[in-house]
């Protein structure tokens, strides 16, 4: 930086930064700091409100009771916690094998060829599909054919959103494996199937695990795709083919309800969802550090 100008040397003044340019620099620096402060305020406010309002309503009953009816005090949302875990699990069961096998093709079998370029283009487009459209898709495909709103329909909707995340991280994982490993596998007579399942997949596991956790973190908070697929349920769902309550839909329903008790429960549910996502995201960071190559 050219900030320091020694007073003793008359020549130095010739190269000093003029006050106008300095002012411009200081002004812009102030502006950027203001940007950071303005951007930080809403986030800190959200975190603060979710933590204080959530903790205020937190009680063991939240985990053991069913959602309260309008105007009734107390209650909890054990069915919604189970429902969120269940829909995310179904979403992962569908999208993980699908995504990992797709990445096996695009990186291991056909890296750089026409089809894998097309697939990665489709993956990018898929990741931009609005979440509500994933919900309408699952409604049209699952709800209309089975005739009932269900956790399965919700899981399918979530899997559409999880798929691009899993494909991308798995691709990164396979790319990180050096060529020598593949040559070594062929050298000892392994078929492609054997080298993928016994060498490449285990080596890419930290990346895949990161992708799965990131996808789960996204799915846990999604509401729009579940509105018309898992719907909501005041009680415990008896099977995965019935309407199922989830935390995010519960937050939506209770946030727009006029009853104070339900609004308070919405904040508690928000706290639990944010904690869940936070734990899963931190897990993803820890897992991604354990790289094999």
């Amino acid at each position, binding site marked *: *930086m050219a900030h320091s100008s020694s007073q003793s040397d008359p020549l130095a003044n010739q190269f000093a930064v003029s006050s106008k340019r*300095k002012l411009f*620099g200081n002004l812009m*620096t102030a502006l950027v700091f203001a940007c*950071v402060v*303005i*951007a*930080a305020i*809403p*986030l800190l*406010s*959200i*975190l603060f*409100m*979710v933590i204080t309002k959530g903790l205020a309503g937190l009680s063991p009953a939240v985990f053991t009771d069913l959602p309260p009816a309008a105007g009734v005090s107390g209650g909890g949302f054990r069915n919604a916690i189970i429902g969120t875990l269940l829909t995310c699990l179904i979403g992962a069961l569908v999208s993980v094998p*699908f995504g990992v*096998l*797709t990445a096996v*093709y*695009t990186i291991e079998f*056909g*890296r*750089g060829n026409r*089809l894998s370029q097309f*697939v990665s*283009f*489709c993956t*990018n*487009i*898929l990741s*931009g*599909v*609005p*979440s*509500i459209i994933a919900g309408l898709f699952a409604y*049209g495909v699952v709800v209309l054919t089975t005739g009932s709103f269900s956790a399965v329909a919700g899981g399918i909707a979530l899997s559409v959103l999880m*798929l691009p995340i899993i*494909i991308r991280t798995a691709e990164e994982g396979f790319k990180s494996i050096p*060529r020598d490993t*593949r040559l070594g596998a*062929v050298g000892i*007579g392994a*078929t*492609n*199937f054997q*080298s*993928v399942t016994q060498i490449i997949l285990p080596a890419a596991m930290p990346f895949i695990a990161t992708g799965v956790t990131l996808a789960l973190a996204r799915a846990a*908070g999604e*509401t*729009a795709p579940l*509105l*018309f697929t898992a719907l909501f349920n005041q009680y415990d769902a008896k099977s995965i083919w019935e309407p199922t309550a989830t935390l*995010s839909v519960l*937050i*939506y329903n209770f*946030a727009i309800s006029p009853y104070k008790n339900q609004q308070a429960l*919405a904040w508690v549910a*928000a706290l639990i969802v944010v904690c869940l996502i*936070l734990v899963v*995201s931190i897990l993803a960071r820890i897992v991604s550090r354990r790289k094999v190559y």
Partner: protein
Amino acid sequence: MTSISPGSEETLIDSSIKFQPERLINQIFRWVTIVMAVSVGVILLWITYSLLQIALPAIQAFGLGFLTNSTWNPVEEIYGTFPQIYGTILSAFLALLFAVPLGVGVAVFLTENFLPPKVVTPIAFIMELLAAIPSVVYGLWGIFVFLPAIRPALQVINKAFGWIPFFSTVPGGRHLFGASLVLAIMILPTIVAISRDTMTSLPPQLRQGAYGLGATRWETITRVLVPAGLSGIIGSVMLALGRAVGETMALAMLVGNANKANISWFSPASTIASLIANQFGEASGLQKSSLFYGALILMILTLLVNILAQMIVGRFQQVE
């Protein structure tokens, strides 16, 4: 990320194993992965097809007039989504108006060593956290904290500048402007993350050259670094726009769901996604079909924005 790889050299090589069952398993496995890869494209088509299939009665009934008609009348079965399209575009535009300067400012702050990394790293982490918070929580916060907090300020603006059409209504509980501000907060992390990646990936020679010519830090940033990373920044803005257009929950909770296109930003409005979220539960027949028609328009809108974003970001990566 999606750099052009050195082709088949990196992929697996077929070994010349002679044991038949293993060769068979190998072939099956290869075909399974091909089928899965192709299915990603099939899913995209399937999504479009299933929307189209249910939307067909509404498309036949209203045609392109659906885009310009502003009635939504379930009794007489006349539907149009002009107010929703207007609300979707205006809310996304307003959100970008606030989020882009803020996001670029934060990205510059995070990459240009204004403060030691010890201070910057937690701020970057907070920004990533912001991205992980579900939109329904933003909506909850918007209803109970943000909208009540900004209401007095908006009332002052309305009193002082009410003669400007954009501020001409007295702000009520829920309005387009507040919803757009929450939307801006939601898309901020997208802009920050990608702009930041772009700025850090610029070749260091650019910076060294500018400093060597005697440019100050800010002259370097505004005349060299930001122009050099412009396509990455524009790409991030396009991706954020895609997210803003498709965002559902926060808008459904905050925008007020008024089925009217109003010039004033302080009046309740509606977006395509919020309309679907609000009406789908009670809808049937032609109304449901119309909602799917709306979804199809939304899908096309986001597709266009996203493809454009891919092309811009892709071009930047090639230049690199």
